[in-house]
């Protein structure tokens, strides 16, 4: 990446927040004397918590082994859920003023109950978002849930949240997403060389940092990248798909690049999925958030939702074309049920079109990196050989 000073400062700040999100939030709390609200991925509207004058922090999978948490959750749960339970059991969330859940994955629901039991003095609330997106009542139900969430936040801060504040927060979040999307455009078009890990850190830090600070750093980073001349990149263009609640391990991302891949695009939650859709800045803000909730599933379809108007596999095929990716690596968090359900649809669609893809199951405790290296090397070699041959679609 660039040797530009501003970019380095920005990346370093993003890295620190992404690697130590709770420390970063604690520091903010100490400096500002304001409340911090933890939330679960993937559909929590941080705009509302920001408008309440709190710092919204999307809780992250920790890079530490699960230890105490084993006493509260079975090993056959995804790494994110186990890690969050572990962090709650270790008291790492004690500084949070509230935890507000919204998602409905059955494993997250289990974690919600455990977190509430471990944090008896913390406001641990649940605001269940409707997961059927194309029913006649989906929009109204989503709006009602966001209205309940707003009331919960008002109870937390002891005052009402006015519409003007919410619109202001929406504008700031939109600006942040817009800049992040520009960063993606620069990478996709080859005008900037940004590693997969760097990109992830930029997005992940946006989930946990003060949004205004993050946006200011991002402006600075982009100012330098826009003018930088980037030489041609050599490697196999790879699209990364999958991994929802948890960020892929940096070591896995690095491995793709070490094996000769260039990650040109993704639909990861710690990536495009998080930044795909803006909220309308005019009109009733709760209406706008409900609309955003439904619209983002059409923008980047999510297998945790049911939506007759969205096709994840079709989205991925188009996204591969758009980013001129040559192969797709599917990163599936072990035990992630929504992903396991949808994967056969993707597999069939890609096989039918002769598009190469590789499924990698990841775990919280990744212990098989060398075996993975062989698989990725082999996959990329197959992709390179296909360059010279026409795609063979399977009838």
């Amino acid at each position: 990446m660039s040797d530009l000073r501003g970019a380095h400062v920005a990346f370093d700040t993003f890295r620190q927040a992404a690697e130590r999100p709770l420390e970063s939030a604690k520091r903010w709390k100490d400096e500002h004397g304001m409340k911090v609200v933890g939330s679960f991925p993937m559909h929590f509207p941080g705009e509302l918590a920001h408008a309440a004058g709190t710092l919204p922090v999307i809780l992250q999978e920790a890079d530490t082994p699960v230890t105490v948490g084993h006493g509260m959750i079975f090993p056959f749960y995804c790494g994110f859920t186990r890690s969050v339970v572990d962090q709650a059991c270790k008291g790492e969330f004690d500084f949070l003023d509230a935890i507000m859940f919204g998602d409905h994955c059955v494993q997250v629901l289990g974690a919600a109950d455990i977190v509430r039991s471990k944090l008896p003095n913390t406001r641990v609330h649940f605001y269940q978002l409707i997961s059927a997106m194309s029913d006649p009542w989906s929009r109204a139900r989503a709006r009602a849930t966001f209205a309940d969430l707003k009331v919960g936040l008002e109870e937390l801060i002891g005052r009402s949240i006015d519409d003007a504040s919410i619109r202001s927060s929406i504008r700031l979040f939109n600006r942040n997403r817009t800049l992040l999307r520009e960063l993606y455009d620069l990478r996709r078009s080859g005008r900037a060389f940004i590693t997969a890990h760097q990109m992830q850190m930029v997005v992940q830090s946006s989930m946990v940092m003060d949004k205004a600070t993050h946006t200011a750093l991002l402006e600075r980073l982009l100012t330098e990248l826009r003018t930088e001349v980037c030489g041609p990149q050599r490697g196999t263009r790879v699209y990364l798909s999958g991994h929802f609640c948890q960020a892929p391990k940096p070591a896995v991302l690095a491995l793709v690049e070490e094996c000769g891949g260039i990650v040109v695009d993704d639909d990861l939650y710690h990536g495009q999925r998080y930044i795909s859709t803006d909220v309308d800045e005019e009109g009733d803000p709760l209406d706008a958030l409900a609309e955003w909730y439904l619209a983002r599933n059409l923008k980047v379809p999510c297998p945790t939702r049911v939506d007759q108007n969205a096709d994840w596999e079709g989205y991925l095929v188009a996204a591969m074309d758009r980013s001129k990716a040559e192969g797709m690596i599917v990163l599936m968090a072990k035990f992630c049920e929504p992903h396991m359900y949808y994967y056969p649809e993707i597999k069939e669609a890609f096989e039918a079109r002769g598009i190469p893809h590789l499924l990698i199951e990841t775990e919280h405790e990744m212990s098989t990196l060398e075996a993975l290296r062989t698989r990725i090397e082999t996959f990329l070699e197959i992709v390179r050989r296909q360059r010279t041959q026409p795609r063979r679609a399977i009838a």
Partner: protein
Amino acid sequence: MNAATPVAKRANRLDTASLNNRMVNEYWTSVFNAKKKGRLVCWYEGVAINPLMQAADVSWVHGEAWSALLAARNNEVKPQQAAENRGYLKELCSYARTHIGCGVMAQRREEQDSGTFADALAGGQLAERVPVPDFFISAYPYCSTGQQWDEMLFRLFGKKVPVFNISIPWVWGNKPDARYLSGAEFKEATQFIVRQLRECIKFIESRTGRRYDFDKLCEIMAYTKEAGRLRMEAMALCRAKPAPASFFDWTTSLAPVNFVAGGPAIVDYFRKVKEEIEVRIAAGVGTVPREKYRLFWDGIMNWNKIGWLANKFAGMDAAMVAGRYTHMGFWHEHECIDVKDPLEGMAINYLVCPINLSAPLMVEQIVRLCREYQIDGLVLHAARTCRAFSNPQFLIAEAVQKQLGLPVAMIEGDMVDESFYKDELINSRVEAMLEAADSRLRRGITAFA
């Protein structure tokens, strides 16, 4: 050899169970004949919405019940393999995997006629012969898997078979007034479900092209309510010592309150069950030859292990007298059903089914049952692919240990994938739990208020 290895003692299962088997076979026979008789077939998952279909003269296939039947009749392996061949991983809900596997097999099916249930059963062809759906209804409480399961079936059938979703909110309780069956959030959730049930009725009307017979629904729900009442009364009789029937008997008696057609037969069934229990109590006959321990089963059932487990615990002198699965669901809140306008009562029963209560409310109910049935220990069956049931189990274990001093044993298994069942681990863990229970019994700690 482990001391807890089952000995020759066998469970004394209820004789009336054979009537249940007959009802189940008749029900599936009618499903296999549905298309010949011009009836539409609905595939659905989740709560017992079958009365909605029955009132419209539509046949129904409950995904979980169907998968359970396949496992109980050793027909589950073929659909599970078909699902795996399409790319569904083994860690997915085995109910869903088995049912979706039937959907995968249906895509390859040239002959649409299902033949008879008896022939399919005899030929080990249940999975590939099940009648294909004309529409889907998804009504899954708590577990996100449910809606996705139907969504995947919808996609598997080329998006040509319409699907209707009923979203059932989790009973969490943000507000201080949140209690079991009460509080503003519970009431709002109930009304949300009622509105969706009304829409679902319109959807069914649109599929059948006939006016919906609401009076018939009321009639069906009157039978269902009565069956629910008799079942709860019969289960309550098992507070007697020795317990005349076990959790395993109640699992095999779920069909009439889960998917068998509501009518006089299900009422008659539970009346006979109750009579048999009363006779046993009068004669001092227990569900196990020698009742030394009274246990509670938390979690879903191993459908291919019911008889095996019943005998295993009988061999340990342990009566499994109650369970979350059986005692906290399946029209257990029958009193809420107004037979003149049953939708609200149906919605309430759906909301308080065995997985849809958040842990504090669920624990409250389990502690109550442990007291009522004078439980000596809990067996928590962590079904590998049913996180919905496994989710609160550590909290349940913690609560009964702290509040009641009860020992627990956590065991691993699964609903319909036998490969997750670990017999020797179960023996050693249950043995350890029974030793702790023994110690309590020796100290005279047996009775609860």
